[in-house]
């Protein structure tokens, strides 16, 4: 449906702005209704509704078979709802946000294309197809990050995003090759059947699992390929909300969830996943503590939360990871849209220039506050339930438990730092404050809707309620039954409250000086603020050498490889000059000499007939050979060099 909208917008309605947005939104709302219907079907069938709509071979060549096919399982249905809901909200919101942009229609066309690709990704029934859509969402992400392409930073960020994720995709591609080689099919069910049968050695599964995870590392911006996501904030804010917070970046998590069988079969692969997730969640949270750009704080927060999900999946807790994926999508989209609303009002991203906006922007501020509570994991909001499950999943792994709890604390702190600095206190830039105003309804209604979800979405996972969640987040026949972990709940709530409290003291009451803290931990502060210098490191270690090597190869190509060709030509030309000289002086000389010789000696030697003939023949043969050589090489090189000069 959104694909149709994309085509229609691109080809027909470029000049009718409002129409294109309506078409796009109409399509997504239809998609949304359809996904609700699918969900209802699934629920009414008790979770066993698996509908293979269509499988269609695009290539069959012997055993090599590539298929396009779609399948809906409970997790896919959940993702469908998430994608269509957020997409619909974002598109409605964009009417206000993008109002007056010269490429308004194109923006909606891209959004539709994105939504199409994302839905395709969710519904794919095999690893090959998921890769196709995987790349397509990457393309739309590239187009949308660089949407304001006049800005160098925006087009740079788009390029960076594309290439960085492409590096991850190499791993994915390699994984696909190995999957074909060792398992012989791409189809989910068939692959999992083979894996579960134990017919393939574990080391191979480990290898495939890690390769596929590489793709997720790129797309979900896990360490060390996280560098593109913060830069991707150059795109329009609703795009950040949709693609770089709620849906596309979650595709990596979705992929790992889909490929769960590999990680269950291979503990090594699973632990790799878990460690990367853990490190990313901590690493990104530490950076988020000190950033001043409202969108970057949210971007690092996204990284950190994605790390959480990846970690949960690495600990083979399917339910926790996917549950958090859903709740996070709602509250993170809300946070971004709220941030967009603020940016729309004050025209800056710098939280140091904001302050006191709550008075002017009650709806935005209020919903933002709800989202902050949700992400911090305060009862009874969505984040509370899912985060609780993740921390519970770390039980038995002390390091994971401690770090995950620490991250929960940090999350609460930086989110409320953001909130207090933006919405409370005295305005730090009076002029911007005066211009600020509440955003139009097209922007605030989606906020309110999402805020509702941020509150309620977690309730499907309330322990003790044996509801939908038992099979939506179920993996491999094991029903997902949330347990009440009172200890975890209490600890995480306390930690979150501590984080909020600290932020309150530092940025609201100002009883603890933030500057003094920054002074005291100067080294850490700079390290965090500069994002561990990873970008700089890559630039020095990878990008510059790559360009240098490319330039070197080019000059190598021009001078050595082509130089050899030209050298060959020069040598042949020189040789032909030599031959020409020989021809002129010796061969011709001999001929002339013979002439002279015979002329003068003919009378004297007339009687020696046989000798003359033999000499003559010899001379003819010798001459012919030389002339032959000359003719070829002269033609060959004389022309080449003449023209070459």
């Amino acid at each position, binding site marked *: 449906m959104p694909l149709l909208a994309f085509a229609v917008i691109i080809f027909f309605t470029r000049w009718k702005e409002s129409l294109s947005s309506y078409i796009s939104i109409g399509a997504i709302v239809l998609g949304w209704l359809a996904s609700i219907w699918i969900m209802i079907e699934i629920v009414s069938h008790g979770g066993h509704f698996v509908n293979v709509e269509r499988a269609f*071979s*695009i*290539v*069959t*060549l*012997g055993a*090599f078979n*590539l298929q396009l096919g779609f399948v809906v399982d409970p997790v896919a249905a959940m993702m469908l709802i998430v994608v269509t809901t957020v997409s619909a909200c974002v598109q409605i919101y964009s009417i206000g946000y993008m109002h007056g942009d010269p490429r308004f229609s194109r923006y909606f066309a891209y959004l539709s294309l994105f939504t199409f690709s994302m839905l395709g990704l969710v519904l794919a029934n095999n690893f090959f197809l998921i*890769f*196709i*859509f995987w*790349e*397509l969402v990457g*393309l739309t992400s*590239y187009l949308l990050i*660089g949407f304001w*392409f*006049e800005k*160098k930073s925006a*087009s*740079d960020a*788009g*390029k960076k995003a*594309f*290439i960085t994720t*492409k*590096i991850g*995709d*190499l791993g994915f*591609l*390699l994984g696909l*090759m*190995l999957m*074909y*080689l060792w398992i012989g099919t791409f189809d989910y069910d068939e692959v999992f059947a083979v894996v579960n049968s134990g017919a393939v050695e574990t080391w191979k599964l480990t290898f495939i699992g890690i390769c596929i995870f590489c793709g997720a590392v790129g797309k979900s911006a896990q360490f060390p390929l996280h560098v593109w996501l913060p830069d991707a904030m150059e795109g329009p804010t609703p795009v950040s909300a949709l693609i770089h917070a709620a849906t596309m970046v979650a595709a990596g998590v979705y992929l790992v969830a889909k490929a769960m069988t590999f990680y269950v079969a291979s503990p090594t692969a699973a632990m790799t996943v878990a460690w990367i997730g853990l490190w990313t969640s901590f690493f990104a949270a530490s950076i988020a503590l000190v950033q001043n750009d409202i969108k970057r704080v949210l971007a690092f927060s996204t990284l950190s939360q994605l790390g959480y999900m990846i970690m949960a999946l690495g600990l083979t807790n399917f339910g926790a990871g996917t549950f958090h994926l859903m709740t996070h999508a709602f509250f993170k989209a809300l946070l971004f849209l709220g941030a967009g609303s603020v940016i729309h009002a004050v025209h800056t991203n710098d939280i140091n220039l904001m302050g006191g906006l709550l008075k002017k922007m009650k709806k935005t501020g209020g919903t933002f506050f709800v989202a902050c509570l949700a992400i911090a994991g305060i009862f009874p909001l969505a984040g509370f339930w899912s985060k609780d499950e993740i921390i519970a999943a770390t039980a038995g792994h002390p390091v994971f438990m401690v770090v995950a709890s620490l991250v929960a604390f940090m999350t609460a702190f930086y989110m409320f730092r953001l909130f207090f600095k933006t919405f409370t206190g005295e305005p730090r830039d009076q002029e911007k404050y005066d211009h600020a105003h509440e955003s139009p309804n097209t922007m605030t209604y989606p906020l309110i809707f999402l805020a509702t979800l941020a509150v309620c979405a977690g309730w499907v996972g309330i322990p003790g309620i044996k509801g939908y969640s038992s099979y939506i987040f179920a993996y491999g026949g094991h029903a997902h039954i949330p347990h009440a972990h009172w200890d975890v709940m209490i600890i995480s709530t306390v930690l979150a409250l501590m984080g909020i409290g600290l932020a309150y003291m530092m940025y609201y009451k100002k009883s603890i000086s933030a500057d003094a803290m920054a002074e005291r931990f100067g080294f850490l502060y700079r390290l965090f603020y500069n994002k561990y210098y990873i970008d700089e490191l890559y630039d020095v270690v990878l990008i510059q050498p*790559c*360009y240098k*090597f*490319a*330039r070197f*190869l*080019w000059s190598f*190509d021009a001078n050595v*490889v*082509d130089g050899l*060709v030209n050298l060959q030509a020069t040598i042949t030309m020189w040789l032909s000059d030599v031959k020409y000289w020989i021809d002129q002086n010796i061969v011709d000389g001999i001929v002339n000499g013979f002439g002279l010789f015979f002329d003068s000696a003919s009378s004297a030697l007339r009687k020696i007939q046989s000798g003359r003939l033999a000499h003559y023949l010899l001379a003819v043969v010798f001459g012919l050979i030389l002339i032959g050589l000359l003719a070829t090489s002269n033609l*060959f090189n004389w*022309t*080449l060099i003449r*023209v*070459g000069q």
Partner: protein
Amino acid sequence: MTYSYPILTYTIFLPLIGAVLLLFIDKEKHNAIRWTSAFFSFITLIMTLVILKDFDWTTAQMQFMETHSWIPAIGSNYILGVDGISVPMLVLTSLISLIAIVISFNITKRVKEYFVFFLLLECGMIGVFAALDFFLFYVFWEIMLVPMYFLIGIWGGPQREYAAIKFFLYTLFGSIFMLVAILILYFTSEPHTLSMMELIQIGPSFSHNIQIMAFAFFFIAFAIKVPVWPFHTWLPDAHVQAPTAISIILAAVLLKMGTYGMLRISWPMLPEGIQYFSVPIAILGVIAIIYGALVSLAQKDLKKLVAYSSVSHMGYCMLALAAYTSVTAMAGCMFQMISHGLITGALFLLVGVLYDRAHTREIAAFGGIGKKLPVYTALMVMFGMASLGLPGMSGFISEFMVFVGSFDHFWAEYWYIVALAILGVVLTAAYILRMIQNVFLGEFDEERWGHLTDINIRETLCVAPLAVLTIIFGIYPDPVIKLMEASLNNLVTLMAR
């Protein structure tokens, strides 16, 4: 399927008839000349489509065979025939030729001669893909060179003569090796024959050394055409200096003759050769992929960038060809030949469109022109994405099949060769995106480029079929694969001898 008339002969010589007819048209009547050549090229396309329609893809047999005694003294016959490997190439050639002719309508210098040479070239190209006798093959192969030489040398850029001679001599140099190889086979076979089909039957019975030697000679001849690293340096010069239409022909058809020659001749005829040289060829392929991509990354000239990207993309073909036991790899190679023809042909066409307007191809001179030329930019971005192997476009399918196939073949011992080749995907993304960014994105210089106009209808009509096919083959490649499958299966069997 047999016809009551020799359809292949008609198809080959139609352009030649067109060329002869052109000679009788007044050279001032430019439009008459243009439309006549377009007409003949169009009819040729129709003919190849008829061949495609009536081609029986379920068998690997040569079809539409024509055999006539030609020069009995040396045992040379006039043999034509097509199978699943040549039919796609025939259609591609006639399609690209028509597009190239239409895009050349803006040529104003010595119009008549241009189109005469062009139709002669088309005759040679189609002949190469249909000839099944070595002598005939060689004749067509050389016929092609002459018009190409003049087309580059007269209608090319500032350094056209250097480029033309370099192209001519380099290819001629390769032809000599081919001739020697043909002679080796001729004199080794008993009774002496020049028929490719017969030689394919008896080829494996030749001694190991003969096979290796003939294979190596053929390889040099074809490798220059592909071009395989390190025989590629004629390519950037020829591409950059050639007029737009000729660049398109070069990229889309001429380069394919190298790989076609390998698939048609040296691979099935001399199985011990490919078995012996498989790994070195794979290595050359990977070098071409990585090296071509890196050199593209450093380019300052738009056309040179596309030219080096061809080197890189043809490397995928070589990698696939080295994996001689895998049908998937062979199909990947064929598919890559087709999709590279479409995509790179379109890229050269588009670069030419920009050059016609801006009179420069220097990447750094542009910036932000996406704002001024939205349709052009969209097309360029689309083909750029196709070139870097975006799923949904034909390039992705071929790359994927090449990788899967060569992995299948090499994984036991030389898996790292293929793994290294996959790196090329990222490098390709890097140079394409760098190009897009520097040319189309960023600040727009109104003063300098304000006069640029978007792509016009004639040009759009030329690109459109390429764009449509790129997408169709990207989404549903099966018909093309089916067309080739029987022949490729047969090929793999032949190479396993």
